């Protein structure tokens, strides 16, 4: 099946938002929070692990205080780089300096139906549709649960894996698996897909993102689920979402300190339980509107936007940076583009290893399939900005300039004939209609979606693998959905 290769962001340039002292001060704040204030782990399993390793555990409040040396020891075990396996080995992602792999946003609950335009609750079929579009686009290095399979009850996270694999051959990161039971089934499905536990460990085809609860609380189901995946070496993203003013101090540094302490406490646990478990660090700080508490991702002043990436790297961890994710409700308003316009560039320059966020509207909740294509364009615009420029005798074309002389034109030059076609890359904005006028970008984006859905049919898992997956799903449905 022909499909464009993955085109990640590549750059040798680096942008620093924080200086060495600021990074040190932030880390020191985390050490102090972990040692003196502690983090709540409402999970006996987690508390047992911490007790065993000498953390100070209060069983009544479930607050764990982690001494500095224990933090340092555990953090020394986190791998800095590893591989995210894909169904198709060509799409395996090898984490490395200077490369940022992007994916779509998740996990919304509304879909604006591509055919009828009706806004409705998302289904398993929509998850498949999003996975298929993702599989085709070169901006998408891996896939995320874009919307939830609301027609599948409590086993929806497993059905989301199933339908993604049927429609997508890249790495899949689940946004919704929670709790031991669901995660055990997820591991079983991934083992079947990969063929053996060893292969699963070497090229994990799935990973999971779990959230912490600001301020300084862990989610039992998330933590216990993550521990199950950790046993098998499946990568985890620990994401905190400190919201300034409501769940975190209303100052930027304070919010980062809270968020970092949450991520680090969960990472320490993962390393104590299974040393070497791959973990991504992620802080999605947001602002609470001081009048309504509404979740705001894009105030006018969002300076040091990708400081969390540097904080992660300072700890020696890879980072998941969030970009896109506008508050706009429409697929193609000024707001939907303006809010996010500089994000992909900044996050790639900060050096985030993986980045999520393309395609949803309404603060991560609504999918217009065409938004995928519109945001893909913003992605590529940033990608091109970071590509190296060719400066050599041919591109300098001094001889051609001499031939044209002052006041002439270049249209009749062979050099121009050779280069003009590719010198301007067309995005959705510069598509021509029959009369040579630029088309409406949204209309073009809808056409692209239609084309992908009609023409792109990624190869599904082998029949015998699919049979096994069906069997696992059936068992899970029976146990958890009845």
């Amino acid at each position, binding site marked *: 099946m022909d499909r464009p290769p993955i085109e990640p962001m590549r750059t040798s340039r680096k942008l620093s938002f924080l200086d060495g002292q600021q990074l040190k001060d932030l880390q020191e704040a985390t050490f102090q929070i972990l040692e003196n204030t502690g983090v709540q782990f409402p999970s006996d399993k987690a508390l047992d692990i911490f007790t065993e390793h000498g953390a100070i555990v209060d069983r009544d409040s479930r607050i764990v205080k982690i001494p500095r040396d224990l933090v340092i020891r555990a953090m020394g075990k986190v791998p800095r780089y590893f591989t995210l396996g894909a169904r198709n080995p060509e799409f395996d992602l090898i984490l490395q300096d200077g490369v940022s792999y992007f994916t779509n946003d998740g996990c919304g*609950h*509304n879909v604006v139906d591509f055919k009828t335009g009706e806004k409705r*609750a*998302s289904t398993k079929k929509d998850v498949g549709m999003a996975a298929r579009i993702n599989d085709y686009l070169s901006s998408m290095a891996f896939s995320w649960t874009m919307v*939830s399979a*609301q027609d599948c009850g*409590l086993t*929806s996270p497993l059905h989301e894996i199933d339908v993604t694999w049927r429609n997508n051959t890249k790495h899949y990161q689940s946004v*919704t698996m929670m709790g031991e039971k669901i995660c055990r089934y997820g591991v079983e499905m991934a083992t079947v897909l990969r063929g053996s536990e060893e292969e699963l460990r070497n090229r994990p085809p799935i990973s999971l993102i779990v959230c912490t*609860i600001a301020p300084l609380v862990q*989610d039992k*189901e998330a933590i216990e689920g993550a521990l199950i995946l950790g046993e098998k070496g499946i990568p985890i993203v620990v994401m905190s979402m400190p*919201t300034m*003013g*409501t*769940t975190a101090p209303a100052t930027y540094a304070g919010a980062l300190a809270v968020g970092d302490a949450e991520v680090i406490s969960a990472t320490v646990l993962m390393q104590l339980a299974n040393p070497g478990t791959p973990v991504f660090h992620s802080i999605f700080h947001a602002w*609470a509107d*001081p*009048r*309504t*508490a509404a979740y705001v991702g894009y105030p006018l002043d969002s300076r040091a936007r990708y400081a969390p990436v540097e904080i992660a790297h300072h700890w020696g961890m890879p980072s998941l940076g969030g970009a896109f994710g506008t508050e706009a409700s429409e697929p193609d308003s000024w707001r939907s583009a303006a809010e996010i316009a500089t994000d992909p560039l900044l996050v790639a320059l900060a050096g985030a290893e993986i980045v999520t966020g393309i395609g949803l509207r309404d603060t991560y*909740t609504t999918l217009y399939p065409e938004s995928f294509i519109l945001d893909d364009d913003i992605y590529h615009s940033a990608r091109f900005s970071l590509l190296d420029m060719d400066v050599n005798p041919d591109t300098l074309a001094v001889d051609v300039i001499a031939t044209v002389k002052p006041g002439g034109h270049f249209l009749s030059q062979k050099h121009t004939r050779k280069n003009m076609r590719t010198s301007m890359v067309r995005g959705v904005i510069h598509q021509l209609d029959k009369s040579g006028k630029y088309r409406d970008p949204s209309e073009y984006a809808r056409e692209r979606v239609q084309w992908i859905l009609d023409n792109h049919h990624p190869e599904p898992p082998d029949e015998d693998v699919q049979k096994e997956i069906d069997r696992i799903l059936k068992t899970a449905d029976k146990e958890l959905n009845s």
Partner: protein
Amino acid sequence: MSEEFYKKLMAAVVDGEPEDAEAIAKEALEANLDPLECINKGLVPGIQKVGELFSTGEYYLPELIIGADAMKAALEILEPALVGGQKLDVVGMVILGTVEGDLHEIGKTLVGTMLTANGFKVVDIGANQSVEAFVKAIKEHGADIVGASALLTTTMLQQKKLVEALESAGLKNKVKIMVGGAPVTDRYAQEIGADGYAEDAISAVDIAFRLMDAPV
């Protein structure tokens, strides 16, 4: 002298000073003031003023919330001192929580604050609360309204379970059910048999008044 105390109580609420509010309430009782008068002439006008300043845009959320906290601090002293038939004049009693399996609570907490600032008595049972915990709280406090928040598509189902549980506990006609949260819609609320749905905290107050059949 009593006027002086009412003024001070009102100021403590308007300025958002919970420690002062508590101390003044204690002093008022020591000075043998009528606790109900302190509430009605000091605290209530105070919280009304806070609500007014919030709605005109002068106050932001922290002022609103700390104002409500100041009122609560004084009430904790004054309420137990009410005598005989004296009763707090509240618009309605609300049990509020986020449903089981769901840890999102900012929206729910905000709804609670808005209701409190508008004269409701709110018992916030927290996040991740089972249907049984809601029913227990309703029985314990004799609620007029039960409010259930859900932010996840998987936990919205708990709101339906709550409606069913109230039905089987014979409470469905005694307490009004209000639901909300990002994935919840008016249609869903109707489908599951809830009495009201609110999109945000401000409309939650309007709906609560409507459910109480009281003027807004």
